[in-house]
C-alpha cells in the first residue's frame, strides 16, 4: 500500500482489534490502555506526522526477496523455539508458579486493593513503574527538544483567521465536542481514582485526559487551546508528576523504610498502602497526561508553522 493515510487508519483498526483481543484474554487493564493509546493517540500522532512528511510512499526499487528470506528463516526458527513452550491456558506453566500466587493470595491482606494489577503496579513493583514514568517524561522532553518552535507574535493572527473559518464550517463537530469533552474529562478522573477497585489507573486516566484536550485542540484550533492551557505550565506539570512519585519514595526513605515502602505514610500499613497508591497513581496520571499534551502540541505547532511559512512564500 502506497497511501500512508490508509496504512495509518488500518493500524488504528488493528489497535482496536488487539484491545478486544486483550479483553478476551482477561487483561482488562491492558485492553483499556491499548484502546485509548493504540486506536486513539498513536493514530492521531501519526496522522499529524504525515501531514508534515507527505502522504505517499515512493515505489520500492530494491527487491524484497532478500528481506522475505530473512523473515521466513527467523520466523521458522522462532516457531521451532516455541515447541518447548507450555501450552496455551495451562495453569501449570512456569510463569504462574513464581511470584504470581503470592500476588493473588496475599495482596488483599498486604495492600488491601481488589484490583491485583493496581497493587502489583503501584506497590510490589513500584520501582519499575517509577522507571517507566521517567522514560515517558524523557521521551516527552525529547520530542520537545526536537520539535519545539519559538512562537512569533504575528503567527497568532494567521491562526486566528484559520480558526474562524473552522468555527463556521464544523458547527456539528463543535457542538458535539462541547457536550462530550466535560464527560471525557470526568471519565478520566473516574478512571484515575477508581483504579483500585476496577480496571483503570494513572496510565489510562492520563491518556484519556490528554485525549479530551487533544480533541479540544483539533476542533477549536491551536491558538485557542494555547490560551486555555499554557505551554510552560503543562511542562511544569509533567515534571511535578515525576516529582510527586519520587518524593513519596523519599518520604519512606526518610522514615527509615525502603524506597517506596508505603507503610511509612500511615500508622496502619494497609491505610498507608492506600494513600501511597493514590499518590503515585496521581503522579503517573499527571505526568502521562502532560507528556501526551506536550507531544501533540509540539507536533501540531510545528505543522502550523510550516503552513504559515508556505503561505508567506507563495
Amino acid at each position, binding site marked *: 500500500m502506497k497511501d500512508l493515510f490508509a496504512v495509518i487508519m488500518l493500524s488504528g483498526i488493528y489497535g482496536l482489534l488487539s484491545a478486544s483481543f486483550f479483553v478476551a484474554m482477561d487483561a482488562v487493564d491492558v485492553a483499556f490502555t491499548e484502546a485509548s493509546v493504540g486506536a486513539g493517540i498513536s493514530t492521531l500522532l501519526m496522522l499529524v506526522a504525515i501531514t508534515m512528511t507527505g502522504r505517499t510512499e515512493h515505489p520500492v526499487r530494491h527487491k524484497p526477496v532478500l528481506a522475505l528470506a530473512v523473515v521466513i528463516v527467523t520466523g521458522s526458527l522462532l*516457531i521451532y523455539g516455541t515447541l518447548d513452550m507450555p501450552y496455551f491456558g495451562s495453569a501449570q506453566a512456569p510463569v504462574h508458579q513464581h511470584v504470581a500466587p503470592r500476588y493473588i493470595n496475599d495482596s488483599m491482606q498486604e495492600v488491601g486493593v481488589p484490583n491485583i494489577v493496581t497493587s502489583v503496579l503501584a506497590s510490589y513493583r513500584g520501582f519499575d513503574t517509577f522507571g517507566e514514568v521517567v522514560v515517558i517524561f524523557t521521551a516527552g522532553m525529547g520530542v520537545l527538544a526536537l520539535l519545539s518552535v519559538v512562537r512569533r507574535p504575528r503567527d497568532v493572527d494567521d491562526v486566528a483567521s484559520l480558526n474562524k473559518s473552522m468555527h463556521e464550517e464544523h458547527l456539528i463537530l463543535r457542538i458535539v465536542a462541547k457536550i462530550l469533552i466535560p464527560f471525557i474529562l470526568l471519565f478520566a478522573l473516574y478512571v484515575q481514582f477508581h483504579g483500585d477497585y476496577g480496571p483503570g489507573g494513572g496510565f489510562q486516566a492520563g491518556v484519556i485526559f490528554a485525549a479530551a484536550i487533544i480533541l479540544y485542540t483539533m476542533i477549536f484550533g491551536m491558538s485557542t487551546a494555547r490560551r486555555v492551557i499554557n505551554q510552560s505550565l503543562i511542562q511544569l506539570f509533567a515534571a511535578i508528576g515525576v516529582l510527586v512519585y519520587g518524593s513519596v519514595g523519599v518520604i519512606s526513605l526518610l522514615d527509615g523504610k525502603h524506597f517506596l515502602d508505603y507503610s511509612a505514610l500511615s500508622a496502619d500499613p494497609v491505610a498507608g498502602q492506600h494513600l501511597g497508591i493514590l499518590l503515585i497513581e496521581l503522579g503517573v496520571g499527571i505526568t502521562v497526561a502532560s507528556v501526551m499534551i506536550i507531544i501533540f502540541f509540539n507536533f501540531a505547532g510545528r505543522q502550523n508553522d510550516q503552513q504559515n511559512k508556505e503561505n508567506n512564500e507563495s
Partner: protein
Amino acid sequence: MILGLYNYWIVVVLMMIGFYIVIAHGNLIKKIVGLSIFQTSVFIFYISMAKVDSGTAPILAEGIKQYSNPLPHVLILTAIVVGIATTALGLALAVRIKEAYGSIEEEEIQEKDNLDC
C-alpha cells in the same frame, strides 16, 4: 497436542509481518508502523502467557477461584504507554529528517549523504 501452541504461532506471524515492514520498506513512517506491529506482537505474547483456562480478570471478588496471572498485565500496561511515548519520539525524528533532507525515503536520504561527502 501440538496445536495447543497456536498462540505463539500467531505472535510469530505478527512479529514477522512487523519485521518485514521494517526491513523491506524505505519509508520512515512505514518503518515506525512496522515497529509498532512488532511491539504489539510482543504484548500479545505476554498477555497470552498470562491467560489461564477458566480464569477471570485479576480483580479480587467473592466466589472466584482461578485468576489470570496479573504480573504480565502490569508489565504490558506500562509498556504500551512507554511505547506510544517512544513512537512519538520516532515520529518527531522523522519530521526533523523531512525538514533537513526534504524526504523520508531511506534511499534518497543516503543519496544526499553520499553527495555531501
